[in-house]
């Protein structure tokens, strides 16, 4: 069992090899050690040599060549299966002389632990090999988990937040223009979209009555009364919106646009509206035909939109183009 310990390791980080003495004798071993070429002190490093496929290699790094009492590099190769036994034997062999061991962190096998204490008793050496080799690497992970685990409320909170984030993500795909990273703005986007869809249902149910007149009376205010007005009611929500918009437009164009956009509406120039209605089939959509009768429309998207006449402004929902014009 002696010779196997000192056979040169296959570790990639250590280019040095030990001459393997036949016998596992204290002095012989030490002499053999120090008779070989002195290890550079920079060898003491923490990098993890890649584990070989079959064997885990642990290597001791050279710390100080000067002191005879310090064993440095003992590369181990696990050619035989019972390496643990060999390791323990090694420890038992060295502990008698109370030699300082400097074990670097074992990467692949995690067998050795790097300790800076000059003396290592055998018991601690053998016990620390198994468990502590892994703790320095994963201590922060364990800590975090334990910190959260002790508080059931925080776990519940975390779960809840994760669930909400997950659903928010799925909602993001549904809503158009859902590329907002901010949760609050995403929520606003969702709300606006739901409002818009509900408004679409309302508008479509209006149009289903099969009367361009009724639709136009709903969506356009006409001071001149040039359209047939079957509804008989003069105060619709649309008209109030238009009043409000007209008032806002007198003060500040931006706030008017914002108000409209908050409602999911926009204005468009009448030329554009007429182009839309004439480009596509004229009477396919009663909404579009009603637009023709409308007064003035402005669009926030086009840069130059002259305000022609504020009084007869009409508002249409243009958030989703397919609703008004033909898809």
């Amino acid at each position, binding site marked *: 069992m002696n010779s196997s310990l000192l056979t040169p390791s296959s570790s990639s980080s250590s280019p040095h090899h030990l001459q393997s003495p036949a016998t596992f004798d204290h002095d012989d071993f030490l002499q053999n050690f120090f008779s070989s070429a002195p290890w550079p002190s920079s060898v003491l490093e923490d990098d993890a040599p890649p584990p070989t496929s079959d064997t885990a290699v642990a290597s001791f790094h050279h710390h100080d060549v000067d002191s005879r009492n310090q064993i440095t590099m003992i590369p181990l190769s696990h050619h035989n299966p019972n390496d643990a036994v060999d390791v323990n034997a090694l420890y038992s062999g060295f502990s008698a002389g109370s030699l300082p061991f400097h074990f670097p962190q074992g990467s692949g096998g995690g067998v050795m632990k790097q300790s800076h204490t000059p003396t290592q008793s055998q018991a601690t050496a053998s016990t620390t090999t198994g468990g502590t080799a892994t703790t320095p690497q994963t201590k922060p992970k364990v800590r975090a988990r334990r910190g959260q685990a002790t508080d059931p409320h925080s776990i519940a909170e975390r779960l809840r937040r994760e669930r909400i984030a997950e659903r928010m993500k799925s*909602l993001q795909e549904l809503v158009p223009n859902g590329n907002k990273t901010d949760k609050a703005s995403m929520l606003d986007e969702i709300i606006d979209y739901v409002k818009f*869809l509900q408004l679409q*249902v309302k508008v479509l149910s209006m149009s*289903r009555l099969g009367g361009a007149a009724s639709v136009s009376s*709903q969506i356009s205010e006409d001071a001149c009364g040039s359209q047939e007005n079957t509804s008989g*009611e003069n105060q619709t929500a649309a008209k109030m919106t238009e009043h409000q918009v007209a008032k806002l437009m007198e003060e500040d164009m931006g706030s008017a646009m914002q108000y409209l956009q908050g409602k999911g509406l926009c204005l468009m120039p009448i030329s554009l509206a007429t182009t839309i209605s004439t480009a596509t089939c004229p009477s396919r959509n009663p909404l579009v035909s009603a637009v023709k009768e409308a007064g003035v429309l402005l669009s926030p998207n086009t840069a130059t939109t002259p305000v022609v006449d504020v009084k007869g402004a009409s508002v249409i929902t243009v958030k989703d183009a397919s609703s008004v014009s*033909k898809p």
Partner: protein
Amino acid sequence: MASADKPINTDVPEKDVFALHFLQSLSNLRRQNAFNSPDDTTNNRVKKIKKAAYVSMARAAGGTNRLWSRALLRRAAKENNKVVIFSRRKKRVTWLRRSNRRDPVDAERLRNLLPGGGAMETSKLMEETAHYIKCLSMQVKVMQCLVDGLSAK
């Protein structure tokens, strides 16, 4: 407490299911002769059709399996002075109440929009919103197709 999250199911039936339900409700309306022009203003007609649209959408989307559709149907039935019968109800009241108090403020506007949204957890609210959006868009498509089909003369 649930350790793993079950996969959310927001599947929505095909368009023809929605179309079927909507047409059925429209024909019901017609049969009831609700569109007599003398006693009806346009707005009432609009309201009736809108309500029919929503109710048919709720029925098509799963009836009482979804919280929002259940609330919608209940609201509609209340207006008609009818009683809605539920097949099953989940009993997670205490847990709901506890988490409800913590943040119903969070998505308040959304809750106001969604039928039955005031009584849900936020995560449940999001789920219901996703399903609601899907159903709404399906219903809009159906109605749009109807409008296009009928007005192409």
